[in-house]
């Protein structure tokens, strides 16, 4: 547990890192100024970024997190649609700052990883402003934690030819499983000519 008793006031910011294949690594935060963590610079989005609540648990559990980016010019939406955003790894870190000086607290456990998972889904919502005749888009990344990914993962070989051949294409061992259902064997019956 982080001891914050020596600080009269603190501020926190969340830093999001999404590695989209083909596009690159998106790094942004709700911090007021650009900030560097582990030699990676995070763009300051301020209030146009919001992140849903996260929970801290001792026991591993599956959780979901929504990251919302609003006010994105519609011409930048292609970047979302043209690349494989779904399945992109996401990491959210929290950094504690001194509210007076604005510098990160030099304490153990800062920054801390708050969430690690993948983008499970994303949604786009376009809003049109008639007065300025512009439109902007809000993107919602629905993220699933790694525990959730493991829980939803379907693994295991079933006793059917499809599963068997998916792993071993030349293996005919289970080819007869479907045809055995309802099949009759005249065990011990005399042969008829």
């Amino acid at each position: 547990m982080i001891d914050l008793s020596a600080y009269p006031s603190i501020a926190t910011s969340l830093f999001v890192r999404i590695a989209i294949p083909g596009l690159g690594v998106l790094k942004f935060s709700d911090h007021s100024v650009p900030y560097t963590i582990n030699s990676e610079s995070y763009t300051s989005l301020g209030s146009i970024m919001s992140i849903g609540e996260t929970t801290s648990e001792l026991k591993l559990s599956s959780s979901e997190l929504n990251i919302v980016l609003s006010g994105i010019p519609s011409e930048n939406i292609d970047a979302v649609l043209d690349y494989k955003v779904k399945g992109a790894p996401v990491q959210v870190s929290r950094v504690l700052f001194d509210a007076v000086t604005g510098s990160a607290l030099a304490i153990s456990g800062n920054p801390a990883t708050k969430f690690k998972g993948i983008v499970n889904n994303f949604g786009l919502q376009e809003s049109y402003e008639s007065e300025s005749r512009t439109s902007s888009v809000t993107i919602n990344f629905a993220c699933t934690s790694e525990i959730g990914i493991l829980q939803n993962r379907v693994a295991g070989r079933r006793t059917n030819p499809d599963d068997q051949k998916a792993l071993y294409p030349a293996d005919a061992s289970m080819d007869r499983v479907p045809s055995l259902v309802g099949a009759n064997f005249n065990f011990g019956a005399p042969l008829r000519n």
Partner: protein
Amino acid sequence: MSFFKDILSGVGSFLGIGSASSSNNIGLELAKTALMAFAVNQTNRSLAKENQALTTINPYQSRVDQGVRLQVDPDSDQKIPVCYGRSTLGGIITDARLSTDQTQMYYVLTISERTGTLLSTGADSAYVFNDIFLNDQRIIFKSDGITCDYTIDRDGNKDFGARDVVKVYCYAGNSETPQVPEYYSNGSLTAAYNVLPGWTANHQMSDLIFAVVQITYSPESGLTSVPNCMFNLTNSMTLPGDVLLDYLRSERYGCGVAPGDINT
């Protein structure tokens, strides 16, 4: 009527009541009933003899055993279990074959996935078939480790009904890795595709622990249907670290986590 009167007088004399007229009537009725019963009995015996003669016209035809009609119950959605350490498992039927003369039935019982390499030793997982149970009775094999000699129930009672009727061929890995249960040895084991009729070298049962159960048709043994087989086997992968890593890594039955993502 003189015949009946003679009998009546005899019966009345026997009963000691022949002097009374009412007693004569009762005696007459008794005699009539006895005679009728005798006649019916004789008629029944005669009819039974005739029926017996009719049924023995073709004795061979009536004695031919028509066998049994069997159905197996495979399940194409059943997942193959993974066994770590020692456990007792039933098998999933994945194939069934009948010999050409219809007197031998073969079942392929898939027992478990074959697990990977042990982190602690670097060796592959090794399996031992400790015990095999047939209808809840432990099989004692003959010296070949395949043919059933007799079975033992939970109270230690021996049952020789399955002797030479049941054979169990065990495989630990694929069709070409035969082995016999613990404490048996056999230097002439053969691949599963040489045991099962209709199987070829393409029937590999890759990365599977399985058994082929062969049953010879024998109504006397009572084994004319699919028996309930259980296998007690031991996987050499028992340490928690080995098991956890294996389950995390395996794409076949586990989480499929890339080795680089696991700090060992």
